[in-house]
């Protein structure tokens, strides 16, 4: 396949096709730059002083400063970061603990009517979760779970579990059946099969699933805003606090946003080969 592409796109220097190829490459690069520019602008603004952030025309050349970043730290981004980290990791552990066995029971040793169960998981992703905010708020209020990280852990586990089940299942289905049959003929029990055969193969898939869950959890705003706003904000809720109705605040906002986005952007860049699979719930490779 790669050779086919080579043949199609390697043309003689100076020929018409060569020029056309370079034209499209240039267009692609321009579009990439345009699409990426808001992110670049966020990072640039973060290194400006407030004065340089508010200029017409916009300032491109300036002396970078870390003032705004230290502002963000003194505004107390530490605790929100800890809340986000705890919520993300705790719900991730729950998702994997519940999701891996479920995916196994929907693929390798499939339960009767596995197809219905699978589609039940999918429909829960379609529920308008905003419709649940009233009861969830009231229940959290009565149970004293407002500003408690566990309320978010429980909810985010519910959000990510269907994704994880679909995705891990798609990795389990890729294990060659012959391999499992061979293990069973050799007398391997369920436990040996699981730990010696299945887990080593699907570990990269589980890692990819974990990254997708982390992305969604870390960025979630809606429930975090209503359930943790007063004392225990997560990072997205904390970020909104930088929005002011007057005065100059863009640089410090950009600095906070840069810190807030960094973990997920890095995770996404590392996992980009697996991104499409996670986003399509395992339907595409």
């Amino acid at each position, binding site marked *: *396949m790669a050779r*086919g*592409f080579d043949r199609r796109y390697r043309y003689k220097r100076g020929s018409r096709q060569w020029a056309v190829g370079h034209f*499209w490459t240039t*267009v*692609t*690069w321009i*579009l*990439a*730059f345009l*699409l*990426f520019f*808001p*992110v670049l*602008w*966020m990072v640039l603004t973060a290194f400006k002083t407030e004065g340089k*952030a508010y200029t*017409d025309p916009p300032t491109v050349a300036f002396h970078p400063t870390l003032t705004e970043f230290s502002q963000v730290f003194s505004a107390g981004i530490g605790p929100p970061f800890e809340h986000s980290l705890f919520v993300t990791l705790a719900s991730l552990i729950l998702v994997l603990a519940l999701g891996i066995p479920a995916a*196994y*029971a929907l693929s390798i040793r*499939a*339960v*009767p009517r596995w197809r219905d*169960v699978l*589609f*039940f998981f999918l429909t829960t*992703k379609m*529920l*308008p979760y*905003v*419709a*649940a*905010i*009233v*009861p*969830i*708020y*009231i229940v959290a209020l009565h149970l004293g779970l407002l500003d408690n990280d566990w309320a978010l852990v429980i909810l985010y*586990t*519910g959000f990510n579990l269907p994704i994880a089940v679909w995705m891990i299942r*798609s990795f389990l*289905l*890729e294990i060659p059946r012959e391999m499992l*049959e061979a293990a069973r003929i050799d007398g391997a029990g369920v436990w040996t099969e699981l730990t010696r055969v299945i887990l080593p193969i699907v570990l990269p898939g589980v890692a990819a699933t974990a990254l997708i869950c982390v*992305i969604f959890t870390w960025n979630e*705003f809606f429930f975090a805003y209503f359930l943790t706003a007063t004392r225990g904000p997560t990072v997205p809720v904390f*970020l*909104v606090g930088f929005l002011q109705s007057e005065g100059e605040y863009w640089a410090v*906002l*950009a600095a906070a*946003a840069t810190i*807030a986005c960094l973990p997920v*952007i890095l995770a*996404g860049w590392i996992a*980009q080969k697996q991104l499409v699979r996670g*986003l399509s719930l*395992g*339907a*595409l*490779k």
Partner: protein
Amino acid sequence: MSNVLDPAQQLPADRGSSAARRQRFRGSASLGGRRAWVRRLPLLPALTYMIVVTQAPFVVTLWYSLRGWNTLTPGSDRFVGFTEYRQVFADPNFRSAVVNTVELTASAVIIAMMLGTALAILINRKFLGRGIVRTMFITPFLVMPIATALLFKTTIYDPIFGLLDYVLSPFGVHQVNWIGTYAMPSVVLVLVWEWTPFMMLIVLAGLQSESLEAIEAAHVDGANAFQTFVSITFPHLRRYIELGLLLGSIYIVQAFGEIFILTGGGGGNGTATTNLPYYIYEQAFQSFNVSEAAAAGVIVVIGTEIVAAVTLRVLSGLFTASEAMA
């Protein structure tokens, strides 16, 4: 290589020659009592969890929707039957919220899909720095959506110091209150920026799974690039485009943070961008009409279930189609 919508591909399907093999290694499909439960055991915790987390709130919503609770009115928390439902249906803001939701979701999903398809086609060739370009393309999707909304509101849409004003100033556009004047397009643009990478990745997966033999055969038969695209590539991509539109809609229909930050639901005539999630939020947390918000929630859930039932049929059609191909 054959990355068709693959879960169906290797499913323990109830047909074909694999059935006999499965019989031997997995036992029959209708398992007897105890063995069936042993098999169900790993599934039960996850299934129970999802039923409790998704269905219990719905029951509570149903309960409150039949009462008349407004937290500002003492003694209003009592049974009133379907009064709140009538109120919701009579509320012109609810009807406009339905229209806004459809408009917002459809325009964002369709524009993002068109752009995503164009980018996918551009990136599906070999060129210098392809990996870097791909990384740049996907980054908007990774930025925290609430940060995106905040940054667009300030550094891009600002009437005086915003980038949009600067870029358009050579064309005589100056100091336009973008969000106030063009509320819906401002929100749509932000959503399109966030979701174009998602669409690009899905379509790209489709392009890369295309068989080169078919294309070369068309080439040999004298088809030009455009004809090849229309008659071979596009039919192949259709399933991928449908999947992208479906999944994109599931997420964008729930958009809240972008509207909350950018327009606060208002702009234009005051409710120009209030979608259903934002409407429910306003009812519950600004008007304190807990029961009316609950009734609206129940209506939205029922509406979504109907739409979901239809889309699920389409989706299982997608999966079955790939099963037939495999």
